[in-house]
Structure formats: structure tokens, C-alpha cells
């Protein structure tokens, strides 16, 4: 399952994070900064995966933005011992392309997405992410479906009160 999704600029500052497992803040900050440091120090010629403390991290870089997805073995599958370790994780290339469709969806919503969009459209990015990932699993990859929900929120938000701007 997906444990967390991070959007990070090339200075290593987290611009958005979403965790699907509860983690103490201290632990979370330590983990996040170590993973970001590792991702940022890797070259273009290296693969998009890294293993760190039981997480398989899949990341992709778009200009100055890093999208980092941390996945973990599914707990109950592991207990059964049915599958070998690669099966318990999310499919790596699948996740890599999931990052891409996430970016494409954001692009369709905001033009070409950039760091500032994510910072200043905090709410919408959260809503959008919630339409694509829930509880650590992919819900939907249909851009129209996803964006329809965002539209609704924006419409309803502005209808009920004009102050929200």
C-alpha cells in the first residue's frame, strides 16, 4: 500500500504531504528528511526506486518538483506468507506511472503545474489527491471523474459563501 505521498521542491522543502498511516511527528520528520535527502542526491541515470527502512520509495522528478511515493508491504499478506516480498509491495513501475497520471491530472486542472500552484492551491490539491488515493490505494485514474469532483467542491464552496477567495 501507499504509506505517504510527498511533493518536494529541489531545495528539499516539502510542499505537500499526505500520510496514509499514522506516524508520530518526530518520526515522520526524521523519515521524511532522510528520504528527501536520498532522493535529491540521486542522479538522472540512477533508477527511480530506493529502499529505506522497510519502505520502497518510488520517485519522479518534474523540473524543480519531486514527487515521492512511499510504499509498504501489505501487512496481512505478509502474515500469511503467501507471496514473496516483491508481491507485497505496490508494483514499482505502476506507481511510477501513477505519479505521472497524477501530474497529468494536475496539469489539466491548473495548466502546467508548478511549485507555486501546489503552495497556493493547497486546498484543491488536497481534494484532488483525495479523489485519486484513499487509504493508501488508488481509487480512480479517470481524469474527468476526478476533476468533476473538484469542480463540485469549488462550485459549492463559492455558492455557499462569497467570502472564500
Amino acid at each position: 500500500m501507499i504509506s505517504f505521498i510527498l511533493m518536494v521542491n529541489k531545495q528539499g522543502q516539502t510542499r505537500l504531504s499526505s500520510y496514509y498511516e499514522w506516524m508520530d511527528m518526530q518520526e515522520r520528520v526524521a523519515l521524511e528528511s532522510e528520504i528527501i535527502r536520498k532522493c535529491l542526491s540521486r542522479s538522472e541515470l540512477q533508477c527511480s526506486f530506493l529502499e529505506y527502512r522497510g519502505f520502497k520509495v518510488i520517485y519522479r522528478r518534474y523540473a524543480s518538483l519531486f514527487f515521492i511515493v512511499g510504499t509498504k508491504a501489505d501487512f496481512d499478506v505478509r502474515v500469511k506468507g503467501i507471496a514473496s516480498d516483491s508481491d507485497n509491495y505496490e508494483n514499482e513501475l505502476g506507481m511510477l506511472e501513477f505519479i505521472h497520471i497524477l501530474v497529468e491530472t494536475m496539469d489539466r486542472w491548473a495548466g502546467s503545474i508548478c511549485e507555486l500552484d501546489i503552495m497556493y492551491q493547497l486546498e484543491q490539491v488536497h481534494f484532488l489527491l483525495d479523489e485519486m488515493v484513499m487509504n493508501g490505494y488508488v481509487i480512480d485514474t479517470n481524469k474527468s471523474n476526478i476533476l468533476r469532483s473538484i469542480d463540485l467542491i469549488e462550485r459549492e464552496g463559492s455558492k455557499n459563501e462569497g467570502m472564500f477567495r
Partner: protein
Amino acid sequence: MSSQARGLNNFITDLRNAKSKEEESSRIEVELAKIRKKFNPGGGTKLAADGSNPSLSSYQRKKYIWKLVYIHVLGYEVDFGHAEVLALVRSKKYGEKSVGYVALSLLLRGSDPVMGGVIDTIKKDLTMAPMTKVGGGKTSSKGGGVKNDATQCLALCSLANISGLELIQAMHVEVQHILVSKGSTEQVKKKAALCLLRLTRTSPNLISGRIFAPHVVQLLQDKHLGVLTSVMSLLNGLASQQTEEYGVLIPNIVHILSVLVLKKDCAREYLYYRTPSPWLQIKLLKFLQLYPDAIEGHDIGMGGNDHVGQLINVVTRIMFETEVSDSINKSNADHAILFEAVNLIVAWGTTCPPEMREGAMNILGKFISVREPNIRYLGLSTMAQLAQIDGSVEGAKKHQATVLVSLKDADISVRRRALDLLFVICDTDNAERIVDELVAHLVVADASIREEMVLKIAILAEKYATDLRWYVDTILKLISISGDYVSDPIWHRVVQIVTNHPQGDLQGYAAATLFLAVSTHRCHETTVRVAAYILGEFGFLIAERPGMSGEEQFHVLHQHWYNVDTQTRSILISSYAKLANLYEECRPLVAPVFAKSKNSVDVEVQQRCAEYASMREAFSPEAVEDLLREMPPFEDKRRSALELRLLETEGENSAAVTKASTPSEVEQQRAMLNAQMMDEGMAPIDEQEEPELEEEMADGAAEAAEDEKIAAVEANPTLVGIPKDLIPAMRKAFSNLCTSPSGVLFENAMLQVGVKHEYVGAQGRISVFFGNLHATALHNFKVKVDQPDHLRVQMQGTQGLIDDGEGDEGCSIENKTQAKMLLLVEVTAPFDDAPSMRITFETEEGERHDYPLRLPLVATCFMEPVNLDPGAFMQRWKSLEGQDRECQEVMRLPPNSSGIDEEYMSRVSNIIVNGLKFGRCEGVDPTPWTVSGAATFRTGAKDVNGNNINVGCLVRVEANPKANAFRVTTRTLHPLCSKAIKNVSLVSIKLAAL
């Protein structure tokens, strides 16, 4: 797109402009204080019943909550404002509710006590009347319906993200209902599915598979791929908990998969670069991996219409028709599916048609040689899985060279996978090569991977060492290259293995090697520790060698004293005590060290010194002797500490862990040898292992294989072997010697070999004399004695006589003189053959002679008679009944023999008593035609309590004078003992006839 509240934007801009982490956090402190004040102004302001501040406007409340969310995302603890979040959730306005739920998911956890206050609201939102569908599924109005729907979604999403036991108990019925209800829209269903997954994860067995499976069938009919994707996540979760209950769904899953793969039938929005939803395909394939037996027993070749045939078609299509595309996204998506299909083949294991497994191996073989790092990484990782299937490792071994290239890749992720794969494909055949490569790479490997490499090298070297000396060398190399990464368990293991393998010359070798390793002043502290321990235990084995006396052992160790920490010193102190005990000359060297360290600040060092120093005064010499004796063999745990370490770092299902915990063949053999030694011979032995040994024993000296060698030797004109006509006499001489203390083992015109042997308990002293009967001197005379694992042998003899494999000249024996060899042996385990002794020499005429002989050193030499009364004998005789412990053989005497009479029987009884050293038990032999006896086979091996291991042995010889035959039955605690005694008895009885 609407923009955010200005205050929020300003705050974000401030943070963005922060020059340092300190500036950022002080800005956040200010903001938190401000928000706290807004939420609870104190003074006259009254808070609402739920703890929120009613005077805040909707705009303000949302703005502050978003600020808190942002602060939280940046990694700061946010421990207030929960009441305001709940107020938003309770709001009737969708705009407020949506913010409330997002904040709820991010800021709170399900177990938080404040959750209790919001259960009712969530429940109400969940069960909102679903919108009514009218005409073609379009919503009746844009108002209530869509909004209710969306509200339901928000509640589901939040519930899924936070979970919590209380929430689950309150909601799971509703969530299940929403999921299967016909009235729910796709939007709601897909979220309900994932929400339910979260609920079942937190509290398994919430849903009974038998009841729920039919509902899943319904859900799988959905044409909406978003619903299918979510339902598949749910199904994978459920099926991994109750696998059997969901097996009935396999045909449905195969159907969906084949529509996507074979027909490429998929709604346009779900095509990802022309590939039908790769994420759904992955999930479908993952589901099938839960059923490794799915295709077992089906006739796959037929293709047919059944789902198995279809499944095979699908997998075949994915495997062989995936191509590299110009678009990296297309390629990645297709390869994602391909790798998942290979994972399915891995799950099927040996039930999968071999051509598919081979196909997969070939594809992966290509992948691990491409430059694209992602594909290479996954290729290595998947190959490590595939190679673990029985019969696939050979295919993977072909790629060994390619894998070694990736081991040197610049990317740590790739290197790790390569290391893992090498670990998996390593076996007895290629262990030396792989381990040497790994050791060579260790020199340049960077710190991040060193510890892992060291651990894996240590495990491989132990697992696949055909010669444990190589193992000891490898670990020493590890310590010298990368000593800081050699953890304690690794060197403890070396000590354990050396201690537990007294066979061969491992202990002496280890002692000598470590002596050399610590002789240099610069060596790693871990080396000092191992050396201290090993020399303390086994230093005596090398004390006779030049330059390695006890005193010198002390000096090489003590030169490190001032450079090592207290833990190492403690080990050194114990070794010194042992040295001082063995060698008089060490005592004055050791005493001052003890005297000085008695005042050490370290308690352990202090205690050891004080105790060792006063030991001699406090105890009797025997007790001291006992205390400082060699350590008994270690108990062999099922999982070594190294495996546990690996388990810790890699988790239960890692390929490496599985591999490490399965014993290799070599290990099993070693374990078996040890078991023989340890278990008083209770270990069952594979019968087929021994047949030729039995032959050898019965025939005495040169058996079939040796005969061939002799013949080969004869073919070579300058090399002379044992003439064939001499062999029967030789066998007889050998057999005679087995039961008599001295005699001639071999004699021809040139050479006479005499043997004198005597035994006490497990120890024996064998003198061998080589007399020159030739007219001239025999040169380059060498004797090579085989040192089997079950014997500890010490040899000495005339200078140059003993062939130690170093190609020395050998000695010369003048005419009418003799050379001598003395063997001191101790038996450590039951055995049933005799050690070989090869004699080679040259005459002055230039003829080279080569005689393969055997020493008459058989199991019965180590017997000690036991006198039993008839009752006790019969009781033991009965208790040892059973196939493993009993050996029986009937032998007919040759027709020309004198026949069996009472005189013959007295000779037989004499053989049993004096030759085989059994105690005769006359009471159980009512007639003169049977002879019964009992004895103990003594070994020098110790059991866990430090007592010598002995094997009780019983024998019965029954004669049938009419048939001119004997029947020999032996019953012992150990199959090898039974066999050996039977063989020696038969041969001796036969000889007595002549």
C-alpha cells in the same frame, strides 16, 4: 479555479520567504499563538458546547484550519483546534464540511478521544438518502442529489483515512450497505470499497467471506473501471485474510483480465497511453498470485475455453508480446504489467509449465543487461524471486557474469538487488567464485552497503564451504578488509564452527592462521578477539610447530594489549589463563598482567584477573584443570545469529532470508557428521550413503576401486603397484590385524609393514614399522595417512616419512633397517571403514612403487567389554530392536571348510571376546551354537554436559552346523556401529575356518 483565503496566502508567502529553519519555526510559533487565541480568546467570550468559538465566521474558521493543516504538513506538531475541525464537519454547508473532513483525515487519528463527538455526524452523512436516479442514470437535480452523494464521499474518504476501532464498530454495517446497495452511484461505491478495506484491515474477520463473496461477484460486473479498481483493492485485502473463501472468484477475475489484455476492450478515459488501465491489470494479477495452485493439474496444452486455458493465454500474451515503445510512459505501463505477470509465474512455481518459466527467465536475462536502470533494477529483483523456484536456479546462474556487472553499478539500489540475486544463485558450485568476487568488491564498496555485504558473505561462506578452512580464511579476509562492519555474531560464529568441528585439522589450521594474523602489530581488533579465543582453546594443537610455542602465542597476543578495549582484554585474560595452565613458561609472563589488571576500572577485567590469579590457591589442581579445559561444543541452534540479523534488516519474506534458513547440502552433511558425534548415535543415517564403505570393510585392504588403481599403476612401466596375486593374502593379513594387537600388514620382496596397536577407551596408539627387505636402500619413502573426520590423529615418525602434502623429499630406508611411524588417535564418532595409508618409494634402480593399504583401525578397536547378566542382556537386546539399530547377515562357509564343530565355536567365542573385545554373556547361550556379547564403543566426543559419548553395542552369533552357515546379528544405538561390528565379526569368523 478559485484562489485561497488571502490570510492563508500571506502566511504561506511569509514561510516561503523565510531564510532559515529558525525563521520559519519562529513565524509558525507566532501564527500558532494567534490561532490559539482566535479559537479560545478567553476573557468574556463563551465557547459553544462543543468547544468551538461561535463568534468565528465560516471564512475565518476555514482559513485557520487550513493554516493548521499547512503547519502540520511542514512537520510541526498541531495539538489544538480539534473542536473547530469538528465544528466544520458538523456544518450543514458543503464548503465547510469538505474542509472539515480533509482536516480530520490529516490532523487526527481514529483513536483520538474527540472522535466520539463526531460519530453521529459521520453516520448521518454516510446514510444520507442517495439521490434518486431518473432516466438514463442522470441525476434528477443538480442540488440535493449530487451534494448528498458528495457528502457521502467525504465521510467515506475521511473514515477510510482515519479508521479507529470505535468508528468501525459504529459504521461498518452502513459502509457495507452502501457498497452493495443498488442505489449507490459509482462515485460512492468506489470509495465505499476502499473504506471497507480499511475497516477490515483494522479489524479482520469483520466480514464473512462466504456471505460476502456473492456480493463481490455483483460488484465485479460493474463496467466502471474506477469501481473495479477499488473493488479489486478490497478483494485483494479480503482474499489475503480468507483465501479459500474467495477462490471461487478466479474465473471472474480471469474474464475481466482477458477482456483487458486480449480484446483491449476498455473505456477511452481509462486507456493510459493506449494500455487499458494498467493499475487494474496489476491488481487482477496480484489477486491471482494468492492462488498458487490455480493451474495445477489442468491440461494446459489444450487451450480450451475453460478459465485456466484463458489465463495461460493471457499470461503468454503479456509475456511475449510486450514491446518497448517510444513513449517511456507506455513502456513503463506495459512493463509494469509484464513484471506482475512474472510475479504470477513465480507464485505458481513448479506447477507452471516449464517453458513459461524458461521464457520468463530469458526475458529477465535481457532486462538485467539493459542500460535503463529501472528495468534493470526490477529485472534483478524479480530474477531473485524466480530463481528460488525448484529447478530455476540453473537458468539464473547463466547470468552470473551480467549480475556481477550490476554489482559494480553506481546506483546503490541496483547494487543491492544484484547482491541479493547473487546471494540467491550462490551454491556449492559457484560459491568460491561468487564469494571471492564479493570480497573483492567489498574493498571498493561504499559504507552504505558494506554491513549487508559482510553479513551475506559470512553466511554464504559458511553455507557452501566444502572446506571449512576456506570459510575461516574468508572471514579473516572480511575482518581485515572491513573489520568495523564485522558484527559480533559473525566472529562468534567462527568460534562456534571451529569448536564444533574437531574433524580434520580445522582447529589446528584456525589456530595457526590466526597466530599469523595477529603476529603483525597492525591488525583489526576483531582479529585479536578471534585469535585470543581460538589460541586459548586450540593453541595447544600448534604449540609444537616452530615459532608457535605457548610462549610465542602469548607474545603475539599480548602485543595488542594496550591498543584494545576492555571487552577484548577480557577475552585475552581468559586465553592467558589457559596458556598459563598449559605451559609452565607462560606463568611468569601472565602473572604480572593479572596482578596489574586486578585493579582495572572495568569490572569484568577486574573480576576475571582476580579469579584466575587466585584459582590455584582456591581449588585442587584437578578442578583448575577442569575449569580451564577446552569449551564443550556449542549447542546448534536452528537459526544462527547471522540469520536473525538478516531477518531484522530484511523482513520475513526477503529472498535472502528464505535462502539463509534453508540448509545447503554441505551444511546438511556437516550437520549429519556432527549429529553422529553428538547424539550417541541416535541419528538416522541414510542407508544408501554407505554401500561401498561396507564393501571396503568386509574386504579389508584394497577394494574394487583400489584394484583399478593398482591395475592402472601396473600399466605404467616405471610405477609398480601391488601385484594382484598378493591381494588375498593382504586382505587376510588386514583382517587378522583387526582382531589382534600386532602383526604384519603387508609383505613382499622389498618391504615389510608391521603394525602394533593398543587402545584405551577412545584413544589408540598405533605404531607402524616399515622394514626394507630389498638389497639396496629405498629412497623418497613417504607415507600418507588419510585423516577421516571421525578420528583425531596426531602423527610423528622418522624425519621426512610422513607425507604432509608439501612435496617433501621423503626419507630413505637403508637395506635391513626400518622407519617408524607413531599415530595417536582419538575417535570422535562411530564409523565403519578403515583409514587408508598410501606408501610410495623409489628403488635405486629407479622403479617407483605405490602401495595403497589400509590401517587396521576399525570400530571394534575402541570397544570395552561389558559384562551383563542374562536378564539385562535380553532386556537391552529387545529394546534395541528396529531397523536402524540392527544389522544382520547370514554367511555360508565355503564347501571345502572343515565344518562347524564345538571346537570351531570356541574359536568364534575367542574372537568375540579377545578380538572384538566384547564381554561374553554366557547365560543367554543355552547351546554351544550361539555366542552373545556386549561392549561399549568409546568416543572422545563430549555431549552437552561434557561427558564422553559412548555407544552401547550387542552382538549375537548363531551357527547352523547342518547348513554350514553362521548368522551374525548386531544391535547398537548407532547404525554405523552395528554395521561395523557385523562386518568385522563375519570376516573374522570366516578366517577362523581356515
